[in-house]
């Protein structure tokens, strides 16, 4: 009888100071969060604020909150910068490039992980080696030039498509979670390898493949130097190069430049809201795998 009361009083005694401390900690935590949000969101808010100013207002008061929003800035930036075609190019390069990389990961990593291809261990080493290749800017240019694929959309897409990074490694890890018995059962039912790979494995592996696709897509979407080197015709530029060129032309008109930057950033932010879950968990998966 006395033992439980003792422990209960003991517990009560030790927890009395805790709520106050916890409350203080919690306030501190939210203050830190506010600081973090400020650091990450203020630059974008400031970008929007600048994008809405007229040139005169920006020169008179660059930092203050916009008084007379110039929505036409976005229209001007869009028309002068030709961003429609840049964004279309980027979507094409990113979509097809990441699809090629994901396809490579699927058709190479599945048989290697299962041991359906001779020399399994060596292929696994290859998957690690592709992570540590040297900067090959020079030879990538020379290769495409010699194949007559320089300044060619297909050439650029192939170059970014093989930037598979961690994809094959990630996928060969994932394949182990698909039971081998499924292969055997399907084969017994007379399902061929291709049908098995594309209509059985593919749907099962969708989350993993989506992660691989998105990781590579983010990289391709951000690529700027390879595109500068491999493409010469401005009508083929992705949005990164296009925006950088726009900066070169309008470097003294910050409101217009900010509007252009915002035009590029807005679809990314909206798209990010949708894929955010895959992306964040994807990086977690990549590290565990």
């Amino acid at each position, binding site marked *: 009888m006395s033992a439980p009361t003792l422990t209960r009083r003991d517990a009560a005694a030790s927890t009395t100071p805790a709520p106050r401390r916890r409350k203080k900690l919690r306030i501190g935590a939210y203050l830190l969060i506010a600081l*973090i949000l400020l650091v990450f969101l203020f630059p974008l808010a400031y970008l929007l604020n600048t994008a809405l100013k007229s040139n005169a207002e920006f020169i008179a008061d*660059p930092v203050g909150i916009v008084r007379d929003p110039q929505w036409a800035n976005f229209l001007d930036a869009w028309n002068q910068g030709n961003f429609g075609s840049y964004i279309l190019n980027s979507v094409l390069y990113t979509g097809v490039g990441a699809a090629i990389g994901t396809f490579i990961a699927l058709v190479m990593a599945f048989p*290697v992980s299962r041991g359906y291809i001779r020399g399994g261990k060596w292929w696994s080493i290859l998957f690690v080696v592709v992570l540590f290749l040297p*900067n090959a800017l020079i030879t990538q240019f020379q290769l495409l030039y010699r194949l007559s694929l320089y300044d060619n959309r297909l050439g650029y897409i192939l170059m970014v498509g*093989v930037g598979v990074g961690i994809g094959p490694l990630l996928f060969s890890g994932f394949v182990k979670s698909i039971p081998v018995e499924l292969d055997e059962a399907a084969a017994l039912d007379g399902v*061929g390898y291709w049908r098995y790979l594309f209509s059985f494995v593919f749907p099962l592996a969708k989350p993993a493949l989506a992660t691989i696709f998105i990781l590579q897509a983010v990289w391709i979407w951000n690529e700027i130097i390879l595109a500068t080197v491999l493409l010469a015709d401005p009508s083929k530029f992705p949005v990164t190069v296009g925006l950088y060129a726009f900066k070169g032309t309008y470097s003294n008109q*910050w409101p217009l430049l900010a509007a252009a*930057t915002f035009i590029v950033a807005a679809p990314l932010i909206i798209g990010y809201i949708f894929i955010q879950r895959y992306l964040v968990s994807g990086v*977690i998966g990549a590290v565990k795998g």
Partner: protein
Amino acid sequence: MSQSFPFPRRGPVRLTFGIGLVVLALFGLVPAVGVLVVSFTDLRGLPYLPVNWVGIQNYLDFFSPAKWSDSANALSNTIVFAFFSTIFQIALALGIAILLNKPLRGRNFYRAVVFMPTVLGVTVTGLVFSLLFNVSGGPATSVLSWFGGESAFFGDPKIALALVIVAQIWMVLGVSVVIFLSGLQAIPEELHEAANIDGASGWQRFRFLTIPMLAPSITANVLLGIVNALQSYQLTYVLTGPNNHSTQVLSLLVYVQGFGGKSGTTLSQSQGYAASISMVQFVLVGAVSLIALWFLRRREAKL
């Protein structure tokens, strides 16, 4: 090869595997091996000029007195950039990850916000920071003027590299935070409860529980961070251009030597020479990651 092959024919497996391998090898591996080969030649940017073997001449040039000021500058910029951006990235990411692992309201939103710059990418990040540190009047200029100071920011050779590092950390911090979060979530809750019952202070729990349990995530983060930072040049390119002496890293030197043609100190662009810089960088990345891996593994064992 221990597993048997259940499907009737091996042809399809070999065909699709072969297609993948050929594309990967031709466009991924051939250029990578080609860099090594080209680094022993005097290949030029202009086509149809004769290409000669020059042995290790390009490497000798890289370390020769005539080019050493450029080479040493790029080497030191690369190392300073990689060292400081990785250190701050890891420290800040660890703090933020611990904070965002607490049961706070709306923490998924905070996580998403921290990860967002990764998606915005180099050009947007670069332009946003150019705007913030804009000399003709931006928030940074205003803040400095409150204290009676002024600065050319990215135009000032003394602090340009430091500012690029700040922008880089802002851009890549989210990835490290997410990696740490995955590590933190793997620590069983019971350990924290046990430590609480034993009367461990917050600092003690951090030092003797969180850090040792996080050791694999720290290794992954440091390694990824160093390898990325040693090779990254996209943000530097957008923020300060390829020819800025004070921020020129090795990768940018490769770009300038191979395609820029305005390096200022060299007369003509040589892609062979640029390839040798790529190889120097490759060796640097390999050596630094092996040392880092060895050091971190040893620490992991000690903890």
